[in-house]
């Protein structure tokens, strides 16, 4: 563990990413303390520029809501979307990938054709379909994002399993009389996990972006203070009061950047082949 931290700390970009991520988590944690009021409640005159009124240090949007409050509370939503959607995507991906990779043959063929069917559809279009069919409540949106993001983790897990399943330690487990379930999840999976964990950071970044894109099209849950909703709202006043869209845009940019940098740092620290470079 100590060695892992040292390897991680070796890359300055990874450390910057981690600090940014801690900042976002800090914002999410302190949102209620700094902004105890409902972030979607009317707070003052609409469209005040940042700094114009000391009460609203990031200004107000076109309905007169406090942008800073929305940014802080939005950090919660962004992290929630990221974590839950990623867990769903990686969970489905690992399950399907592990079974396909371990059994091979016809099982693999069927599961991989299904995966390809999902991959041939642009996942944003699929997301639009799901949201328009099942409605745009936040829980539905998060599940839908998870459901459209699983094919890549599935393929990655399958590739790891394909190379691991023919290793002698797996044969050794079979000669001991272990059940397949035990071999897949207790013996092979821990060895296949590092690249999947690293890839999860990409899924998380994409999940946050997908929700913002939905919100921009006003298809996300309007009753939640998400960064995407704020951008979508700012669209109407984009030419003059551009800050309404720009501030949450920067927040999304930094969060996605932080998650990606942390993922890259994890990759460098977990991948033994890159050590000493």
């Amino acid at each position, binding site marked *: 563990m100590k060695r892992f931290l040292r390897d991680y700390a070796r890359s300055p970009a990874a450390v910057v990413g981690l600090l940014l991520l801690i900042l976002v988590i800090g914002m999410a944690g302190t949102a209620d303390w700094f902004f105890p009021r409902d972030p979607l409640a009317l707070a003052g005159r609409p469209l005040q520029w940042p700094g114009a009124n000391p009460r609203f240090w990031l200004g107000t949007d076109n309905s007169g809501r406090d942008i800073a409050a929305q940014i802080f509370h939005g950090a919660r939503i962004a992290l929630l979307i990221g974590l839950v959607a990623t867990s769903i995507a990686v969970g489905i991906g690992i399950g399907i990938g592990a079974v396909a990779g371990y059994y091979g043959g016809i099982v693999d063929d069927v599961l991989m054709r299904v995966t390809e069917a999902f991959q041939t559809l642009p996942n944003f279009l699929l997301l639009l379909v799901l949201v328009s069919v099942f409605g745009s409540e936040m829980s539905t949106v998060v599940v839908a994002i998870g459901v459209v993001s699983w094919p890549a983790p599935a393929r990655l897990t399958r590739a790891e399993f394909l190379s691991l399943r023919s*290793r*002698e*330690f797996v*044969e*050794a*487990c*079979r*000669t*001991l*009389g*272990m*059940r397949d379930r*035990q071999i897949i999840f207790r*013996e092979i999976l*821990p*060895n296949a996990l590092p690249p999947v964990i690293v890839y999860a950071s990409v899924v998380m970044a994409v999940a946050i972006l997908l929700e913002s894109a939905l919100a921009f099209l006003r298809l996300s849950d309007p009753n939640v203070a998400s960064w995407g909703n704020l951008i979508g709202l700012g669209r109407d006043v984009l030419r003059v009061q551009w800050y309404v869209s720009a501030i949450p845009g920067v927040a999304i940019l930094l969060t996605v950047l932080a998650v990606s940098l942390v993922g890259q740092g994890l990759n460098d620290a977990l991948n033994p082949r890159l050590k*000493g470079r």
Partner: protein
Amino acid sequence: MSAILSIEGLTVGLPKGADRPHALSRVTLELRAGEILCVVGESGSGKSMTASAILRLLPPNVAIEAGRILFEGKDLAAATEAEMRAIRGAGIAMIFQEPMTALNPLRTIGDQIGEMFRIHTDLGRAETDKRALALLEDVHIPDPKLAMRAYPHELSGGQRQRAMIAMALALSPRVLIADEPTTALDVTTQAQILALIRDLQRRLGTAVLFITHDFGVVAEIADRVAVMQHGILVEQGEAAEVLQRPQHAYTQALIAAVPPLTAPPPRAFSSEAILRLEGVSKTYRNGGFFGRGKRVTRAVRDVSLVLPRGGTLGIVGESGSGKSTLARCIMHLVKPDAGVIRLGDTDLASLSPAQLRASAKRIQMVFQDPYGSLNPRRRAGELVAQGPMVHGMARGPAMARARELFALVGLDPAAIDRFPHEFSGGQRQRIGIARALALDPEVLVADEPVSALDVSVQAQVLKLLAELRARLGLSIVLITHDLRVAVQVCDLVAVMKDGEVVEHGPIGRVFEAPEHEYTRSLLASVPGRDFALAKGAAPLSRV
């Protein structure tokens, strides 16, 4: 004869945190014109590092700290990178252990040999091709014209190594460095390549620095021998002198570990069969789109063998002979297409998956690769305790059993909390054996259990197997490509070729009076056969 390459007080430093400060320390060595000098040592002794240092191809963070490497009067340790490039290939050439990875898979053999001329000379295309062809003829590759146009994967291991040698000899170097050139090859191919190197060296007068871990190979081709241990040159001298009268304790130990090639006196074992194979066959069918390009490999054909209770059956064959597939059939890791495998009275094929899992207790396997056969994320004790736990033992007693087994196979019981990578190769193989024994099996199938280990460690692991067999009344199937390993522990031996058993019987009989042509050629190919036989007849005093 004068020295063509002399190393004087060469010290090569390792990066901080390595197991010792110097890869080589004050190595002084002389290679004379027209001789074969064998550098011998176990893994980690610094013998390959010597070769890399001569060519200045050291890995990053490893550097020459002191000493000189004189090649024809020029100090290579101080030469510039441009000077080194002119010497590599033209003055000093090298052959590697694994020809498949040393050759570029995307270019033809002829092209890769021609590259030597394109880099170092300004010959025309036609002349380059002519010379490459002549070289391939020189190394006795079958059908040189075809080999010119072949890609590396289209040649066999032996042919690839011949192509590598042709490439190394392209510019008639004064010195040829061969780093374990025959280790990855089968015995019969090894014998041919050794004869080829010997023959070329005599004809061309090239000095050869031959790196090996195998004293059999040394006895076969060396003029002089240098023995290395932990980066220090402990002994050097004429081959006959070192082999017959080793001075240093380490050399004596290494030579003592060379197995004798005569069978021990036959042991008594019961006539009741514990494992019986009847007409077992396994065929692999490969790809093929609408029947085109379909390949059918008959890995095991109609094999019938009997393992008596308490006996040891050796299955010997070269790579591709089907011996590992047979082992996997016995373990039911691979389902045979035809034939019956009986363990005691039960036909394994007739069992349900659950019964098969339960019968796993009766037959266990030891694997070849001590690095790949242990799950790197589990502790050693857990790995051993897993078997009993799968079969219903609680964790506490299972760990206690693991401790006992660690003691049984000669490991420290306190080491059960360590991870596999914290053990050496030989120790890991002991963990593998302990895991197999944890279920108290009646039959142990050992697939090349020692081929990845150093000679002295091999001897220890084989001794352990023989001891366990006597103590626990095990019956063992030992799969190996090395006749020298088989002869040490087996009672019965079956020789396999192309999936078929060509000869089987008591090991003494098969070794002294082989009936089949192939067995005879296998026996004749064992490197240093005369040396090993002489040793068996008049054993050296053990150290």
